[in-house]
């Protein structure tokens, strides 16, 4: 009997061990979620080829840049290449981007008359790709708000290439 848990000091020890065991100790390596992304040697823009189809064009800009950067670059046109743009040239290329939970809202310096439906797809696909490459969701929809009021501003669009 004497060899049992005989004295208060033993109980105190048990208590201490139990309490001390509940601290923050070292651990192994654990997974902690998705890795960050957003690095790229350049940005991808979408233009129209001779078959009136959207064609991605990679611009080596050294960095990926934001959605706004990508769309602004798109508005500057295709330059000297075998693709064309369906967006009317404009001197103002700054694009304002607002990100909502499931939507990206672009304020473009254009009217609805400045773009054809393919031109709208160009903007949508460029913005969508930049967003995805920056770590965004592929299901995000794009809403283009034109300078003057038009019902087209309310539509939440997806890129036809990635549906």
């Amino acid at each position, binding site marked *: 009997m004497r060899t049992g848990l005989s004295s208060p000091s033993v109980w105190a020890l048990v208590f201490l061990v139990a309490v001390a065991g*509940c601290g923050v100790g*070292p651990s192994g390596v654990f997974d902690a*979620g998705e890795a*960050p992304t957003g690095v790229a040697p350049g940005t991808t823009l979408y233009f129209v080829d001779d078959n009136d189809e959207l064609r991605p064009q990679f611009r080596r800009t050294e*960095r990926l840049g934001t959605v706004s950067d990508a769309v602004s670059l798109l508005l500057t046109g295709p330059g000297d290449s075998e693709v064309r743009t369906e967006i009317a040239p404009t001197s103002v290329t700054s694009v304002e981007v607002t990100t909502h939970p499931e939507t990206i809202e672009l304020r473009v310096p254009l009217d609805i008359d400045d773009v054809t439906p393919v031109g709208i797809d160009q903007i949508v696909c460029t913005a969508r790709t930049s967003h995805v490459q920056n770590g965004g969701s592929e299901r995000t929809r794009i809403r283009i708000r034109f300078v003057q009021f038009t019902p087209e501003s309310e539509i939440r669009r997806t890129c036809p290439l990635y549906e």
Partner: protein
Amino acid sequence: MGRWWPRGLRPRLLAGFALVTVLGSLAATWAITESAGEALVASNQRRISETVSGQIGAVTHEVSHPPDQAALDRVRDSVGPDTLVVFEDLRSVDGARADLITDELREAVREGDRVVTQRVVDVDRPWLLVGAPVMITDPDGERAPSGIEVYTVRDLSAVQEEVDALVRAAAAAGAAVLVLAALLALVTARGVLRPVRELRDTARRLAAGDLDARTEPQGVDELAELTVTINEMAESVQGSMATMERMRADARRFAADVSHELRTPLSTLTAVTEVLAASTEDMAQDARESAGMAITETRRLVRMVEDLMEVSRFDAGSVRLREEEVDMVSAVRDTLRARNRLDRVELHAPQEVPVRVDRRRLDVIVANLVGNALRHGEPPVRVGVFADRTHVNLVVTDNGPGLAEHVVPHVFDRFFKADSARTRTPGSGLGLAIALENARLHDGDLTAGNGDDGGARFVLRLPRAPGQTAPGRERGIQE
């Protein structure tokens, strides 16, 4: 049980309650800190790794690819101090704690495509290591490592403190409960112990002879049942005792009545035998012998009835001591002289032993002892008187065969005969019993045994001053 286990009911209850409480609070503390602590740590780690991911993700679009040193520095700045950013041979490091980053973690980052964490303890403080590979996402959504790896070290001691506070709170609650449990145990022990104590007191009173002692049963539990049972037992014992007492009293009264009733006819008979004794000379030889026998037997009958009446008085408790200062030696000598025994008994005694006794009763004791020795033992019969500081001893020895071993315990019994064949002895059979009663009346004692030379040896031991008790006090069974 071992000696560490307390014996009393109260400490045992206390210890039991305390043990249960300590175990309970230990279990609760362990469970709380284990789960809550884990949850706390996990949520903190998740928050930290999400923050780091977000900080990296916020600057990646500005980072050139392949990155130069300035780009790595930019990523490192965005994450904060104690951060290491690696791309192929390029390194950007800040803070001494970056040394804590383990090879294990770097391996996991290089080979995987997800953020990983690892806890380490350095200088008694917990740290969280976060390792994140930076990915390249192509337009299709496919991801591939960019080759940029970000490692950072974050302090977890705030979490440690939160967990510690949790443990302290649980321990404090446990201690408080322990106090409560002790109080509860005391209250419970009181509830159990009070009836037990009452029962014990009742049992003690019963054992001490107070047969009226009872305990009022309270409640309907086992203790109450026990109380009822003990009360019933006391009731039954009391009834039996009363019956037995009544029967003994009846027997005693009968003996007293008989001896009393015998006295009157016996005195007549005595008177007649006196007359007979006076006229034996005129009788024929055989008639004279018969008359002599009648006279002897009548005297014996008278003595027996007198002894019986004396015994009855002892039994009835109506005996009174008349103590006076007496010289023991001269009292003994007077007794021997009055019975003409001085020439047959050797008296060994100092000059004078003053003692306070009832002279008549001392005479009865000495006469009985000496008569007994002369009747049953062989001469010489010796009587010795010794005194010590508190007692006077009177020793009567004879030179006979002594007392048989089976006789010794019974010599003071009434009507005891050592030799059953010898039915007709001159004594009444009550002499030694009366002597013992008289000795006890003086707070003394009378013992029988055998001397060193084999003869019977009776020792009367009387206190020198029995006066602690008032003279004339009554003795015997209370009625």
